């Protein structure tokens, strides 16, 4: 069987495959998954999320348990969405006495019907730097939310939250506008962002009217010493809706989690089913061909793993060892090879009685030669179908095991996301966006492989029957 011949066979196979709509749908979804899985890190809004999925600091500027942005229906109230504003304009002035002053301005177009939860100024830098943070509203008024000397440490983000520490300054600003309104305001109670983003009125605290339009956030730094500096200033708007799929209770972006979960789903699904089917097919052929004691032993081992419930077994294993994803894959392989074994065993039993196998034996062919040249190629097409069909089972298994808390917590898999959702009461708290997307993705990936497997099965089975 030459290489060219294999290519021809492949072409023929593709012609037949193209006729199956189901197969094409499955293949398209799978290709999409593979593409997104490989280039996902360029799509996600939070680069570096893979390594920082369980790092609380990484997610601290996100709103907690915020629904997806598209829950802002066109006819309903528009909740402010979370945004990262990084587009900063900068200019440097020389002041009297040679002191340098650097100013950044970041524009923000505010159109929501509700004020955001928080506005966070974040920047990196070195040295003791006096920093002034201010907001200029569309009505031309400027609020200085902070003016203090900040101790900047290299490679550490300095954050200033208007909600947490800006209340006093905001009330001060209102008092400057209209002392009457501000008398009843207490720094511990007011919501500073609400005051910041609404028109000045007597009932602005209880019934605010939003002041929509262009806001400008200004960061002004004074460099008193030579090597002090401020870098990469950003303003983070923490809204009430966030991202394509919302956030969870730990403030993590679920869309990011879903995208980085694709890779693990593919790795677990494909790798496990490949090894599983390979072992199952090999043992099936060996047991059937050699028969006798080998057959008996392999069949008893098969029955053992077939009947053994995997979940209680895994619970015990997880209680004793720390299960990594590779161990989990190995365990699933140990339990799942039995799926491919029996059908292949049956087929090989039939094949070994074929006259051409007998003819080959009469010619003096060794057992391994017959297995590799005559029996293996005959069961191989079927094995591909079995492989495709076993992928969803494996993915669901990883998810099941993860939901039970027996998975590898160091990876981001859909099962792990569901496990967190289950553990933190997503369903009770009506955080549907935390549960539905990973569940749907598991179903979608499973579906793509089932479609592929069914199409393969249809193409390969009749050939098998008619040889």
């Amino acid at each position: 069987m030459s290489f060219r011949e294999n290519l021809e066979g492949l072409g023929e196979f593709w012609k037949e495959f193209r006729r199956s709509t189901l197969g094409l749908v499955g293949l398209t979804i799978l290709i999409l998954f593979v593409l997104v899985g490989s280039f996902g890190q360029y799509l996600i809004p939070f680069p570096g999320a893979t390594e920082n999925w369980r790092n609380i600091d990484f997610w601290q500027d996100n709103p907690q348990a915020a629904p997806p942005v598209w829950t802002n229906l066109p006819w309903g109230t528009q909740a402010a969405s979370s945004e990262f504003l990084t587009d900063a304009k900068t200019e440097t002035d020389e002041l009297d006495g040679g002191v340098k002053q650097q100013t950044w301005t970041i524009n923000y177009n505010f159109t929501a019907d509700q004020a955001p939860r928080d506005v966070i100024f974040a920047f990196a830098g070195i040295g003791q730097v006096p920093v002034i943070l201010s907001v200029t509203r569309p009505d031309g008024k400027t609020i200085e939310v902070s003016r203090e000397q900040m101790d900047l440490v290299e490679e550490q983000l300095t954050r200033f939250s208007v909600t947490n520490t800006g209340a006093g300054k905001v009330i001060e600003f209102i008092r400057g506008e209209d002392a009457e309104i501000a008398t009843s305001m207490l720094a511990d109670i007011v919501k500073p962002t609400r005051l910041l983003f609404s028109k000045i009125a007597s009932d602005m605290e209880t019934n605010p009217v939003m002041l929509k339009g262009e806001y400008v956030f200004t960061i002004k730094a004074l460099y008193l010493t030579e090597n002090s500096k401020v870098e990469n200033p950003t303003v983070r708007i923490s809204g009430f809706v966030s991202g394509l799929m919302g956030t969870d209770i730990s403030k993590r972006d679920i869309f990011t989690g879903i995208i980085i979960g694709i890779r693990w789903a593919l790795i677990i699904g494909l790798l496990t089913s490949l090894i599983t089917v390979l072992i199952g097919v090999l043992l099936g052929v060996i047991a059937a061909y050699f028969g006798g004691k080998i057959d008996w032993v392999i069949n008893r081992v098969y029955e053992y793993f077939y009947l053994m419930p995997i979940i209680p077994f895994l619970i015990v294993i997880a209680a004793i060892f720390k299960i990594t994803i590779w161990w989990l894959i190995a365990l699933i392989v140990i339990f799942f090879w039995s799926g491919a074994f029996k059908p292949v065993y049956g087929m090989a039993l039939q094949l070994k009685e074929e006259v051409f196998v007998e003819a080959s034996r009469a010619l003096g062919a060794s057992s391994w030669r017959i297995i590799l040249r005559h029996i293996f190629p005959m069961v191989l097409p079927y094995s591909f179908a079995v492989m495709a069909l076993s992928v969803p089972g494996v993915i669901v298994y990883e998810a099941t095991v993860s939901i039970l808390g027996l998975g590898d917590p160091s990876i981001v898999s859909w099962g792990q996301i569901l496990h967190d959702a289950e553990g933190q009461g997503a369903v009770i708290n009506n955080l549907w966006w935390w549960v539905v997307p990973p569940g749907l993705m598991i179903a979608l990936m499973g579906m793509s492989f089932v479609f592929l497997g069914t199409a393969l099965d249809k193409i390969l089975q009749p050939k098998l029957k008619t040889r």
Partner: protein
Amino acid sequence: MNDNKPHYFEFDDQDVVLEVINLQKHFPIRRHASEVLAGAHPFVRAVDGVSFQLRRGEILGLVGESGCGKTTTGKMIMKLLEPTHGSLVFNGEDVTHTGKGSEIHYRRRVQMVFQDPYASMNPRFKVKDVLEEPLLIHKVGATKAERVQKIRAVMEKVKITPYEEYSERHPHMLSGGQRQRIATARTLILEPSVIVADEPVSMIDLSTRAEILHMMKTVQREMELSFLYITHDISTARYFTDRISVMYLGKIMEIGPSDSVIDQPMHPYSRALISAVCEPVPGKANELKVLPITGEIPSAAKIPAGCRFHTRCLEAMEVCKVAEPELLKVGKQHYAACWLNTDEETRRKSREQAVAQLESRAKTA
């Protein structure tokens, strides 16, 4: 092993390439609960003591009804089945139970043509792959070019030419006759000394049968091969073979030169087989013949006592029910196992002996 050779082995060891001595194959069958409890091990005696000699350059026919054990005999000779009892002697060497080392040597010298040429080739292989397989197994021809040359030569021998046209075809792209030619070529490519042909033309159109047999006979003469031709078709056997042995229920009933056996059959079973052959006589084609045989072939699990053919024989006598006849010389190189070929006195003595034996066995039991 050579000391218990049957008395009818009359050919010199020099001439003989393969000897089969008292070959038996018993297959165990599924037991009833009662048999399991009784500790009985019932079995089918598919082949029940077959002995013959195959000379160099000779074609020996093995003829009989379906189920008489002729294919099982062929498979045991091919070492595809392990004999329950008996031995195979190849060129004076006992090869019944050989280890892997010498078995490969035997396999190279003894080849088989199967009944269904299509089933005997891997449907995924091309003609050139089918023919290359024996060369690869026996490591004949060091380079691809050498092997292709051998394949080309053997395809010419079986008249499948040109090489370019057929080498790339799959078995299903060949006609039945061409397939059997390729199957024959596969056996010839290793230059064997014995070929076991198990009904090689029964799956082939009547029109091409003679052609295939003719081709086989030509290569047999050219290469001085010994052929064991297994068939149920006595008319092709007459055309093709030098000697014929007639098998019934796992045993040889009659053996001798083809013309002699067919023209003067000395066993009622042979007579029945021969008269069953259709003769295309004008006006008589639709007439049913009355055959000199009754009943059906008994199960090989319950072989009748005495002569195994007596239940169906029109000429059965008292002795036939108790004593099994031996192969007796009835002509030149011609032997038959039937009491009809003995005189009254012998039959009476044999019958008394057998009855006495049965009685003594019944007593001890």
